[in-house]
Every structure is written in structure tokens, then in C-alpha cells.
């Protein structure tokens, strides 16, 4: 469905990445593939280093550290936050919502609206859409969108399909009404018939975790994983992205009254370098307008990759200028969506390293 808004803006952005870095050179020793073959794959996909949390660290720990930093620096005060949208696929618990846990830890106002959204790769787009909707209310002046995931805890280290690309991160985007920023066009679509293409089979009510669901088995390509682990049908997801995302984006930019060439920057979800380059070619967009280096530096952190791409590549630019950007996320659900809006003149755009404080 298409959505339109006016005069709303991202006014600040913080990215929190864990200090612990794993190198692909070490990961590949765990895979059932010759080193040379893994190295070739790494060059194509952009595997290099990825940031993963230490044992026991939750996504909300990263988010809380980010908030503490922002409070300490005076970027935002707890009492200013009117809505907290927390997007994750790795909640602290089934109950309560993680947004409520953060609400308590951060000392937010009782009338601050808290909402958890279970979304992944498209979570920044879905969360931003929710923030815009809340900002239509007179009482909501500052909505804070958090995208946080620690899916490395759900990926088997012996899964060459997923482990080298996975990363953990939390991002905090401040979203406000801002006069004169112009029209915003959004489109979000779903195909639930292919929902199981990206899944963690066990651990929910359908298949509760048990000793049996922790047993690792090798697939036809030699990857070892258990039903407790994340599993991705890489070919199906790749084909979905190539077939379904470009027409959706073509509709979106047409609705926004622009062409692909009029967009200054494409901040897309970061599954791997290869997929993003193929997507750029499909849209006839130069590679340098669509950053693809988050997997290389931090890993794919699900809904946190779009803000990570912004802070990693254009922190200074986003604080000094305004440009027309296109956000797009695609994956888990299967969900795919995009937003075209003017973006920039941020009050801050920074990356913080989580060192285990709290």
C-alpha cells in the first residue's frame, strides 16, 4: 500500500555496534569448504569483518547504551520522548515488550507511547512509517525509532550461508515534524506465501525449543545448523529481491514524481555486496549512489542496516546538507518497501561502540 506524509524528518541518528569483531578469515576455518573457494566468495559478497555481541548481550543492551550516550551528550532528554518504537526480531523476552523494558530503564514519561514491531530487513522502513503516523497526532512531537537485533545469537557458526554476513547493532533515529521538508512517499508490501524463506524454525509456540531442536545437521551444501538456528533460502530470497523490489521502487519514485536519476542517495538494506550491486544495475543506479559496505564492516544487522549505511558512509554529509533519498528494505516476511523523502541537516549522526558497559 502507498502512503503519503508531509513535513516530517529524521533529525538525529545514532548507531551502536558491539566492540567484538569477528573476521571472515577466522570464520572460514569452520566451514566445510576449501579456503580458496571461501576467499573468492568473500570478495564477491563483501565478507570481511562483522560485529557480534558477546554471550548474553541483548539487543536492548545496545539500544540502552546508545540512549545513555545521547542523554549524557544532551542530544535528547528522556522527558522529550513522546513515542518509542522498537523494531526487532530478537526481543529480550516473549513478554513483556522490550520497548516497555527500555521505557522503565530509561525513565520515559508514563504517556510515552511504546510499541514493539517484529520486523527485520524492512524494519527501518516499517518503523519510520509508524513514526510518521504517530507524528500526525498533536501530542507527539518526538518519536524515537529503534532498530535493534542480535541475530548472531541465532546463527550457527558453521553455516556459511548466514554466519559470515550476520552482524549485531542497534540504531536510534529521532523523528520529528519539521516545516518545509516536503512530501514523503512510501510503499510497503508483503508476500506471506513465502514467509518461511527466512526463519528460525524453533523457539516459538509452534515448535518450542528442546534438546532435539538444538541438534545440528548438515544440509546438502555442507552447512551445519539446528532448528534453533536462523535458516535462509538464499536463492529464493535473492530471486524475490530481483523480481519484486525493482517494480515496487519504480512505482514509488513515479508516485513521488521523480525518476531514479533524481535521487541523490539510495540507502538500502545491506544483505551483501553482490545483491546490492545487482539491484543497482537493475535500477540503472551508479554503485556509488547505493552504499554496499555495511556487511564488509559490521555485518548485516537486519533492520539496523539502513541507518548503519547512512552513518558509515555519510555522517558528515547528513549533518550539513539535505538531499533526496530513497530508503528500501526487503527480506523477512517476505516484506519489502521503500520511502522517498528529503533527508539531511541532522542535529547529529554518530556511531558508538558498545563495550559491555551497563
Amino acid at each position, binding site marked *: 500500500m502507498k502512503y503519503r506524509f508531509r513535513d516530517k524528518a529524521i533529525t538525529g541518528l545514532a548507531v551502536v555496534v558491539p566492540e567484538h569483531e569477528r573476521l571472515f578469515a577466522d570464520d572460514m576455518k569452520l566451514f566445510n569448504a576449501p579456503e580458496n573457494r571461501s576467499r573468492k*566468495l568473500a570478495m564477491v559478497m563483501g565478507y570481511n569483518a562483522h560485529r557480534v555481541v558477546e554471550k548474553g548481550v541483548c539487543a536492548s543492551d545496545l539500544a540502552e547504551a546508545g540512549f545513555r550516550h545521547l542523554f549524557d551528550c544532551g542530544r535528547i532528554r528522556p522527558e522529550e520522548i513522546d513515542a518509542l518504537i522498537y523494531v526487532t526480531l530478537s526481543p529480550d523476552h516473549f513478554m513483556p515488550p522490550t520497548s516497555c523494558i527500555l521505557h522503565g530503564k530509561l525513565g520515559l514519561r508514563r504517556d510515552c507511547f511504546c510499541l514493539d514491531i517484529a520486523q527485520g530487513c524492512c524494519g527501518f522502513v516499517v518503523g519510520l512509517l509508524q513514526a510518521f503516523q504517530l507524528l500526525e497526532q498533536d501530542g507527539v512531537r518526538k518519536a524515537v525509532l529503534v532498530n535493534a537485533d542480535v541475530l548472531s545469537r541465532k546463527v550457527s557458526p558453521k553455516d556459511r550461508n548466514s554466519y559470515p554476513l550476520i552482524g549485531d547493532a542497534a540504531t536510534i533515529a529521532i523523528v520529528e515534524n519539521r516545516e518545509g521538508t516536503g512530501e514523503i512517499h512510501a510503499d510497503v508490501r508483503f508476500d506471506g506465501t513465502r514467509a518461511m524463506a527466512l526463519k528460525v524454525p524453533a523457539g516459538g509456540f509452534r515448535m518450542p525449543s528442546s534438546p532435539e531442536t538444538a541438534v545440528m545437521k548438515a544440509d546438502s551444501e555442507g552447512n551445519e545448523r539446528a532448528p534453533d538456528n536462523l535458516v535462509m533460502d538464499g536463492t529464493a530470497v535473492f530471486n524475490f529481491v530481483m523480481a519484486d523490489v525493482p517494480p515496487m521502487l519504480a512505482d514509488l519514485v513515479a508516485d513521488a514524481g521523480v525518476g531514479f536519476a533524481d535521487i541523490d542517495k539510495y540507502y538500502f538494506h545491506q544483505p551483501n555486496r553482490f545483491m546490492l550491486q545487482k539491484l543497482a544495475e*537493475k535500477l540503472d543506479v551508479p554503485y556509488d549512489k547505493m552504499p554496499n559496505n555495511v556487511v564488509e564492516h559490521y555485518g548485516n544487522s537486519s533492520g539496523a542496516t539502513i541507518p548503519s549505511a547512512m552513518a558509515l558512509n555519510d555522517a558528515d554529509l547528513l549533518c550539513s546538507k539535505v538531499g533526496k533519498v530513497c530508503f528500501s528494505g526487503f527480506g523477512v516476511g517476505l516484506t519489502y518497501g521503500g520511502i522517498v523523502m528529503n533527508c539531511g541537516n541532522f542535529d547529529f549522526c554518530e556511531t558508538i561502540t558498545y563495550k559491555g558497559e551497563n
Partner: protein
Amino acid sequence: MKEQIIEILKEIRPEFEFDGVENFFDEGMLDSFDLMTLVASLDERFAVKIDGMDILPENFANVDAIEKLVKRSRAK
């Protein structure tokens, strides 16, 4: 072109003989990861940009299929 394609395939999986094989995937000679590496190598070696929509196993099942795809990609 066939020789160059076989050369690229052998760079990825030097342990196999690719000439005359009907389906590399059925024979376990290539997997989905190799497919990505193969596309990147073909793009570079033949100065083409293989369309993302064409990255399907059937287009890389054997040397003839790959040759057809490269020619088609050149024509675009």
C-alpha cells in the same frame, strides 16, 4: 567462449571436469554460493552485467547454458 567459461569454472572448482556435463548442480559440482562467484567472474571476464533476474540455476546448469546467457547479456 566455451574454453574461457570452462577456465572460469575450474578457477572456482578446480577438482572437477566441466566439459560435457549436463547439469553442474545435479552433479554437486556447483552450489548456490559458487553461482554468485561465477556470475561475478563472468561479468568481469566478458564485460557484461548479467541481469539479476537471470541468476537462476537453469541458466548456469552447463557450459552451453552459460554461453547462451553471456551472449544474451551482451546483446542487452
